[in-house]
């Protein structure tokens, strides 16, 4: 029996355990993941994991219960079904919860990297070693840290309306930090990347780029103020990621805290900002469907700076009177309780080279990435965080001297409204589990506020 057939057969067995009056959807998530983490130039924390989890959502007379289990034996599945029904029987009714949908056509075809799926521990260690070697090529004395993650997920989703879907996806992600801690103050550089095919991740190139970003002279103090900035892709991706949660989460509109509540269809960013969510694009980390079995498709978020509709799952789409956009999360996760958010964001590149962007900023700051970014005010899309791993002055149209790290507190929408130019090259960035990706160029922004500084 193929893995697909076996997975769908398991889900059918779960649904068969339910009474005739139950509506339900059920998913099987089979993950194989590996990480080689390194620090101080050594691979110090390898990690391999194999997990199979079944998650069942049962609806009994508009009352919903959700149970998750890792025991796929007949006894385990019976306990799962019983547990979900027990929860449903006591739940307050949710009369607005919609009916589950059957399949409405084939899923988009997503290329699946067998090479990634067949990655061995030895192969993964080789990737990590490549990152170390790449960084050492450029800076032999640097302290190198980072990680390479590789994995696959087999996802099967079925429901009592006849849906039975199966999809596989593969992902890889790497990051490298190069530091010279012996300097006073210490200096560092960073690079990261992601790809759905681990053979194309190129950790050695990430290592070289991280080392090249390390300042060669001592960073100077800089007065916190509003500056023109060139945000490298890793930094710009932070803003786009937070915009996704604060502005395009359907729950934000529903509950009143969203940053784009009342602004749909209005210009909220510069016209150059053209942002979509597209789970089918190979420019991100593609996946064919969400965790409710809805097909992924292209969904506009910002069309020439104009705010589009939020992304939805089954429940939020019904409440909004729309159709699900394919952003259902596993219903039992804390992320499910926060609502659906964009998962594969892609920002259209501009036409500027790196030098063009630097000249455009003329006098300001080049930021490699941000650290520990958190929400200050959701409704105003205000976030705060620190610069990290390579912050430089731009003076008279050239990158000059390094500066000590600064804290910013800025509105995401405010920053996007002052985007002046975008780079012509996009970089694919992703999380370690391959659940979400953001593909963005670098961005020249007219005004970005820094409100304090740190000592290094």
């Amino acid at each position, binding site marked *: 029996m193929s893995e697909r057939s076996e997975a769908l057969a398991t889900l059918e067995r779960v649904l068969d355990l339910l009474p005739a009056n139950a509506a339900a959807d059920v998913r099987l998530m089979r993950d194989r*993941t590996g*990480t*080689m*983490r*390194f*620090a*101080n130039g*050594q*691979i*110090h*924390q*390898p*990690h*391999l*994991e194999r997990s*199979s*989890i079944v998650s069942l959502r049962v609806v009994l007379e508009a009352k919903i219960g*959700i*149970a*998750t289990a*890792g*025991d796929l034996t007949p006894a385990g599945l019976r306990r*799962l079904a019983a*547990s*979900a029904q027990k929860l449903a029987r*006591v*739940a*307050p009714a*949710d009369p607005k919860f919609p009916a589950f949908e059957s399949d409405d056509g084939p899923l988009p075809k997503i290329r699946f990297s067998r090479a990634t799926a067949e990655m*061995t*521990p*030895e192969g993964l*260690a080789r990737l*990590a070693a490549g990152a170390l070697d790449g960084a050492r090529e450029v800076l032999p004395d640097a*302290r190198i840290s*980072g*990680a390479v*993650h590789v994995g696959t997920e087999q996802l099967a989703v079925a429901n009592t309306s006849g849906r039975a879907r199966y999809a596989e996806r593969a992902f890889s992600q790497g990051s490298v930090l190069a*530091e010279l801690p012996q300097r006073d103050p210490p200096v560092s550089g960073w690079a990261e990347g992601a790809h759905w095919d681990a053979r194309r991740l190129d950790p050695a190139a990430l290592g070289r780029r991280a080392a090249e970003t390390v300042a060669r002279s001592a960073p100077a103090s800089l007065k916190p103020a509003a500056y023109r900035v060139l945000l490298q892709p890793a930094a710009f991706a932070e803003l786009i990621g937070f915009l996704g949660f604060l502005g395009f989460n359907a729950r934000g509109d529903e*509950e*009143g*805290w969203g940053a784009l509540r009342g602004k749909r269809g209005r210009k909220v960013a510069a016209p150059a900002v053209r942002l979509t969510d597209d789970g089918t694009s190979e420019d991100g980390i593609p996946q064919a469907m969400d965790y409710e079995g809805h097909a992924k498709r292209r969904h506009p978020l910002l069309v020439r700076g104009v705010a589009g509709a939020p992304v939805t799952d089954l429940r939020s789409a019904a409440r909004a009177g729309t159709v699900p956009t394919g952003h259902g999360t596993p219903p*039992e996760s*804390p992320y499910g*309780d926060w609502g659906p958010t964009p998962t594969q964001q892609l920002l259209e590149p501009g036409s500027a080279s790196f030098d063009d962007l630097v000249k455009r900023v003329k006098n300001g700051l080049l930021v490699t990435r941000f*650290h520990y970014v958190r*929400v200050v*005010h959701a*409704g105003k899309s*205000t976030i705060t965080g*620190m610069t*990290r791993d390579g912050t430089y002055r731009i003076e008279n149209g050239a990158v000059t001297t390094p500066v000590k*790290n600064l*804290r910013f*507190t800025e509105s995401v929408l405010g920053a996007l409204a002052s985007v002046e130019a975008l780079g012509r090259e996009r970089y694919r960035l992703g999380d370690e*589990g391959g659940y979400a990706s953001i593909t963005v160029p670098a961005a020249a922004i007219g005004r970005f506020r820094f409100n*304090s500084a*740190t*000592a*290094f």
Partner: protein
Amino acid sequence: MDDLVRLGLAAAQTAGIQYADIRVSARQRYEHLAVRNGEASALTRSDRAGVGIRVRSAGAWGFAAVSSLEPARVRECARLAVRTALAAARYNRGPLEVLETRTPRKGRYASKVRRDPFEIPLEEKLEYLLAAEQALHVDPAVKNGHASFHAWSEEKWFGDSTGGSFRSEITHVGAGMDATAVATGEVQRRSAPTSFGGDYRQAGWEFIQALDLPGQSSTVGKEAVALLSAKVCPKGPTTLVLATDQLALQVHESVGHATELDRIYAMEAGFAGTSFLAPGDIGSLRYGSEGMNIVADATEPGGLGTFGWDDEGIAARATPIVDHGTLVGVLSSRETARKLGLPESGGTSRAEGYYRAPLIRMTNIDLLPGDHSMDELLDGVGEGVFMATNRSWSIDDKRLNFQFGTEVGRRIHRGELGELYRNPIYSGNTPEFWGSMDAVGDGSTWHLWGVPNCGKGQPQQVARVGHGAPAARFRNVAVRGGQ
């Protein structure tokens, strides 16, 4: 489970492996009940089991995990763990050294629980949450009311290749509520007992009952509405009095993480960051004022960071971290303790579950109480701000520059709490901030909080940790209002 422990260890002890340990999670349960605006927003239960095997070769650690208790899968898990260690060791320079420590022989630890939260009828738990949430809606401006309950339990068997073994059954619970009030152009939220889903404890349903969420709801709803029209917190260096819940987070971010020895040794540099501390600072660095006394206590009754043995088999203990303002200790593991030259590990290695390797995690990091009542803390303030309940938090990667926002602020004027402030924010630099603490609240202001969501590691994992903290007063702090 003892047989499975022996089977896994036997499979792991192959050529090239010097040490192995195994954690069998026979049952790892999680329950999350939440209501939002009268509807159930989450009624979920999770029941998992699995095995995590860690091995050590001469040059590297290895780790593998599988979500199964089937012997064949456990043997495969052991083989994968060995392969990862040997694969990593090929590229490592230098030996991997750890402290050799005697681990327990058939130890046993169990949480003290009066009412098992998983046995409480669901109807009773939901009734409690619905009562709490309903009473938040004191005004049409409260657009969103939310009340939630979480419970975790794990039955774990540990064994290592030196013959050590223990069994533990740990239960954690937590509950909280929040009201979000919305007016044109403004959104304010007020939470209780605090944010991040409330308060948490190693206890049973009795702890949740004692929180009495329904009894506090209307106050929470009223405060959320009042914040909509409150004045924005004024700007300026001023005297700041922090409530116990916000101070707990301050301890977490600017002391707990900074004193994790793996951060100090740059083992977390690639993700969470490092520390402004260096090993040579222990015993000499001035961390804060005389009133600053911090202890890491894994034996504290009811703490989220309390256990019998850590996930390396090291017995729980209390370790002084800051003594009258001087750094005197750190959080360590067998590997990092060896590196520092400590005689033994500090016993702070924990994993989120069988599916993660253990890392140094905070236990219960407590700021010990001082001798000022709340009235006395306020009495010493001519003009200042009181802040409570965290809303936003951010700190640099060496744990120096921080900025925190709270849900609520109040003016302090001549020793009295006055008008409400909204969007209060304070910021600073860690040693300077702690050095500005000139009065520490006494036992009447002190509370043991639980923080359920401390993230670290790659792949990421979450630890539940405890923080006991009083209220305290700080001078000349940068304060402002977020616009």
